[in-house]
């Protein structure tokens, strides 16, 4: 669960005071403002940046950047945003000079939120930060960060364990396939992360250069010892003739919904599948992994994120660019709960919020890696991934999926959009 009660107290509690604003103040609603990580496009001479943007189609300021801090000195942009349980904002990063950062937020004399800057943190050499979650080990809370590049090398990858107060590295969990010995559990290119009780799961996705190697395993970490204890293969169909590349993962558990039987759900980026791995909490053992959704059979590809509201689970599929929805209480089975939300190619991260008139909305960020198009002489082009970079955020009615509005960042700001988070959190309850 991404947000604890405390988080909601700190963040959403601050947002609570916004309820019932007078019409004159409706343009200042912050529930509909999003945090985005923007990527400068080499052919368009723009810089990477962190920005606050208005996402309510009913607002006169829809699509407007309200605050922005650029990173012209960084070759690669920041990657993913996460709020800590105490409301501190962090960003993982792709640039070796800033693989993890804390983002400063403040308010100006008019009360408006502003990005006050960011501080790159010491990761002790761990590179290509991906996902963050806060979890307990022996009763002590830590910040866990997956670094897809780890400390480097062809089979790198690590899970950094940080003190959540001081941001100092407590431990680097690393287990190279080339060093652990045949059959021993390893960590390679970790990206997705989730946990239940004293078991954490990370995925083995792809080498950061997208060429050296591709993973096909889940790695189970014992949170008592902070050591990997098991690998689980999640690979069946190979539509691209690559390894499956599991990416995001969700440990479905009763804390999400009391009816849920514990199990790991994992999306395979190049296998186009969603996998289920049952978990027996009493024996602390995992059952046989099985495919519960086939992209090949359903004509979807590159499944990416899991997001859950109070009663639904949403999974984004970068191709053709849809978000599928399921009944939360039925997890770990995927029981459809409504029509697909048809976004744009690259459908990826999402947030949930309400419009000024009270309409429930979902905003979808549509870019896989935000890489450029070789047809425009963009040196960051990588085959097939360029087709997954729409550079848009589409806003939809949550109930019907109807698209209400779209922001084309490339057209409007000469930038791509790499990540999306709600200013007061994403309005989702479950992510990791």
């Amino acid at each position, binding site marked *: 669960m991404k947000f604890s009660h405390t988080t909601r107290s700190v963040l959403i*509690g601050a947002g609570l005071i916004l309820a019932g604003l007078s019409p004159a103040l409706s343009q200042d609603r912050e529930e509909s403002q999003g945090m985005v990580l923007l990527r400068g496009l080499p052919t368009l001479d723009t810089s990477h940046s962190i920005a606050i943007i208005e996402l309510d189609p009913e607002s006169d300021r829809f699509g407007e950047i309200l605050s922005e801090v650029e990173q012209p000195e960084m070759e690669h942009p920041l990657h993913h945003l996460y709020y800590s349980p105490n409301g501190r904002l962090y960003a993982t990063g792709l640039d070796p000079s800033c693989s993890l950062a804390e983002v400063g937020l403040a*308010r100006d004399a008019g009360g408006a939120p502003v990005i006050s800057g960011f501080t790159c943190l010491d990761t002790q050499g761990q590179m290509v930060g991906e996902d963050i979650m806060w979890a307990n080990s022996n009763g002590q809370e830590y910040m866990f960060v997956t670094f897809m590049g780890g400390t480097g090398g062809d089979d790198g990858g690590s899970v950094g364990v940080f003190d959540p107060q001081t941001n100092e590295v407590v431990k680097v969990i690393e287990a190279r396939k080339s060093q652990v010995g045949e059959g021993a559990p390893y960590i390679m290119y970790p990206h997705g992360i989730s946990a239940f009780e004293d078991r954490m799961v990370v995925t083995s996705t792809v080498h950061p250069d997208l060429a050296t190697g591709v993973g096909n395993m889940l790695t189970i970490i014992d949170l008592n010892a902070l050591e990997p204890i098991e690998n689980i293969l999640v690979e069946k169909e190979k539509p691209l003739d690559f390894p499956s590349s599991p990416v995001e993962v969700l440990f479905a558990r009763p804390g999400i919904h009391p009816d849920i039987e514990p199990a790991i759900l994992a999306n395979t980026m190049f296998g186009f599948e969603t996998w289920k791995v049952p978990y027996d909490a009493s024996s602390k053992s995992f059952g046989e992994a099985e495919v519960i959704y086939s992209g090949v059979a359903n004509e979807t590809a590159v499944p990416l994120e899991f997001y859950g509201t109070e009663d639904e689970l949403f999974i984004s599929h970068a191709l053709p660019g849809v978000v599928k929805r399921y009944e939360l209480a039925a997890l770990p089975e995927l029981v459809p709960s409504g029509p697909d939300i048809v976004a744009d190619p690259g459908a990826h991260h999402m947030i949930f919020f309400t419009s000024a008139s009270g309409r429930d909305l979902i905003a979808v960020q549509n870019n896989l890696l935000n890489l450029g198009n070789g047809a425009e002489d963009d040196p960051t082009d990588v085959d097939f991934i360029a087709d997954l970079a729409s550079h848009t955020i589409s806003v939809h009615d949550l109930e019907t999926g109807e698209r209400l509005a779209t922001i084309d960042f490339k057209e409007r700001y000469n930038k791509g959009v790499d990540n999306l988070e709600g200013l007061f959190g994403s309005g989702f309850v479950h992510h990791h």
Partner: protein
Amino acid sequence: MRWVVLILAAAGIAVAGWMVWDRMRGLTATPIADFSAPFVFGRFAVPPDNPLTQEAFTLGRHLFYDPILSGNNEVSCATCHVQELAFTDGLAKSPTLSGGELDFSSMSLANLLWGQERFFWNGRATSLEEQALMPIQHPDEMGQDIDALMEELQASGSYRKMFRQAYGAVTPENTAKALATFMRLLISSNSKYDQYLRGEVRLTAQEEHGRKLFMAHPDTKVSLRGGNCIDCHSQFLTSGFRDALDGFSNNGLDPDETLPDGLMAVTGNPVHKGFFKVPTLRNIAVTAPYMHDGRFDTLEDVMDHYNDGIVVSDTLSPLILEADNAPEAGQETVGLRMTPDEIQAIIAFLHTLTDEAFLTNPQFSNPFEGGS
């Protein structure tokens, strides 16, 4: 000698010219330099006709500390709002001019920039500007005739200058605006808990235990113990809710027979009988005694009330009525039924809300005593 006369004459002309220009140039108010407030405190809005300016703050600070605002020239706002007590006065009920007691305890003034729609324990003012003139004119509080006050302020060259620079004329409206600006800028954001939220310090094990209890509504079904504080005090770092009548509650102090009107005196709605403003908890350790009538001397007394001293009445908050860590113990009393260790943990957490920098900030001090 002739040159000296000429130089003096030129200097005199220059000074006179500057004085004329200074009076003719209109407002010189400048925005507060480098203003920044914590993001997590939430959105605030300042009245468009009373922006935060350095000149308004300076004028408001002088007015706040000046007994000229009272009819007998002996009572200032600061008489009942003492900085080192987080702008309370340490009394159960503040004294009247005639030696009696007011109806309510003096409220703390901190982070009034947030929660700006209802002021006073019973919410009888809807803006800080409205609030500011009410104690001045109240016969039991400061007993001042507003027209007489304007004459006194107008007679002061320094006040005429400060008003001119901040707003223009010496008027009741501008007096209220200046006091409101000073109060809005009494920002407290450096308590141990603020530092904890910024990652600068750690809480002790007892403070952390108290923090978790503070944030939790008890739920025996999942063995969750809680102090239930956050249910009403969700805006505990600021001064309350922004939205109209949110943030008023009956917290079980009196039975129906003696329940005071509270918010009902303002709204006329019987469902608001016994409702009082849920106050900030910032600096709560230095603002004893507690409650709207100062009936509890210590935080221990307050916790005892919530633990097993809740008095049931028709308008008692259901959030309080429901909160029970030991429902199996029977229904002889109503309260949280926490252990002594849990109570002490919550009190330890409340002490982390004390902001010494705020309590001693020279910018908020009495300017007539050499403050900067």
